[in-house]
């Protein structure tokens, strides 16, 4: 009886935890894949994997990086299972245009289009830093990179974005 009640309580807590983190995980998966339908699938599968592996989450405060790692692995698995056709990045932007253009202002839509065109190696650490609030050390751990390598990628990502969005980059350092 107690086991049963404990199980329900545990399920409730885990569900609430996942629910609260789901919007950010969906956004992360979207920027990872640049495909909304794929992002939904990846997060769904990730949540199921997380459910099955929830005993390995020893500290609930670490739930966000734990789930994020699962999402990244699940996204990688989709490429192991299926070879996606190469798509021109402009087609990706056009495909997701309704969501990208859902911003009130044109300048936000412009930044979104520029993010879509960033190479994966620059886009992913940028999303981890800005959207997920990860520190440089946390990004380095997640992406298996050194701290300086992460900073270099973040620097390049912002330089490219600012240039693409028409910002004044005359004072930006050159590499």
């Amino acid at each position, binding site marked *: 009886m107690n086991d049963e009640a404990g199980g*329900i309580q545990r399920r409730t807590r885990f*569900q609430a935890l996942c629910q*609260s*983190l789901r919007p950010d995980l969906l956004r992360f998966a979207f920027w990872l894949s640049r495909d909304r339908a794929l992002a939904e699938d990846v997060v769904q599968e990730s949540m*199921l994997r997380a459910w099955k592996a929830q005993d390995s989450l020893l500290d609930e405060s670490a739930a966000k990086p734990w789930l994020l790692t699962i999402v990244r692995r699940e996204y990688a698995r989709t490429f192991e299972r299926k070879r996606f056709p190469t798509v021109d990045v402009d087609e990706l932007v056009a495909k997701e245009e309704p969501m990208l253009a859902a911003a009130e202002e044109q300048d*936000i839509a412009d930044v979104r289009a520029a993010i879509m065109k960033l190479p994966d190696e620059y886009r992913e650490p940028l999303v981890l830093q800005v959207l997920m609030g990860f520190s*440089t050390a946390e990004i380095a751990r997640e992406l298996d990179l050194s701290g300086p390598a992460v900073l270099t990628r973040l620097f390049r990502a912002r330089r490219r974005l600012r240039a693409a*969005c028409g910002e004044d980059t005359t004072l930006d350092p050159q590499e």
Partner: protein
Amino acid sequence: MMEHTDYRASILADPHSTDAELRAHREACAECRDFTERLLRFESRLERALRVDILTKAAEPLPTDEPQPVADVLPFARKAGHDARAPRRWMAIAASVLLGVAVAGGIWLTLPQQSLAADVVAHMAGEPEAWQRTEAVADSELDQVLKDSKLRLKPDAGVVSYASSCAFRGHRVPHLVVQTPSGPVTVMVLVHESVRKPMRFDDEGYRGTIVPVPGHGSIAVLMRGLTVGSGEIERIAARVDDSIVWTR
């Protein structure tokens, strides 16, 4: 003194860095200070751009009598035999969305602020225990939570029965429950989230409002249940706003 190019390279990699050497350079160099201000304005656009409006389905209430199969319990579980990528599903969702927008006059779906409201409501689901307490939290506990956001509450703010510094959209934000004559009210002080005008929302059994606080982001105020009118919640939000003293 640090070179300008080194400063700018570092700040481009992490515009919110609190490194003491960077801060010292910024204070001593007007050109780099201007550079940083322009970068932070761009960073604000970048943050908003990354928060694409993702529609999320909130959790169904869990049954309490017997365990359910995972697929029935989890709101995100894929149903057997269901192809999540089937175009028909997306067409149906798209049709529902369009119909909802047409019927509800575009109340809920597209604006970034509405996504913010959805995230606030989702956060409530993650901390159900916040509503249970009625005793006042210790002053030291409350001070600790408010300190990082550079604010304090006036003594007449009411009994604060829950105070937690929560992770929300990449920042730590104060999450409070204040006991009022109308019942417990949740307050989230969102210094990193700006809204243009007050926004009411009713979602998942919560009714609330997010009001702008010029220069300090916004405040989300919400109650459980729909028995208290939106007007009353806005009056409560105004009182909460009045009771906050910003210390920066």
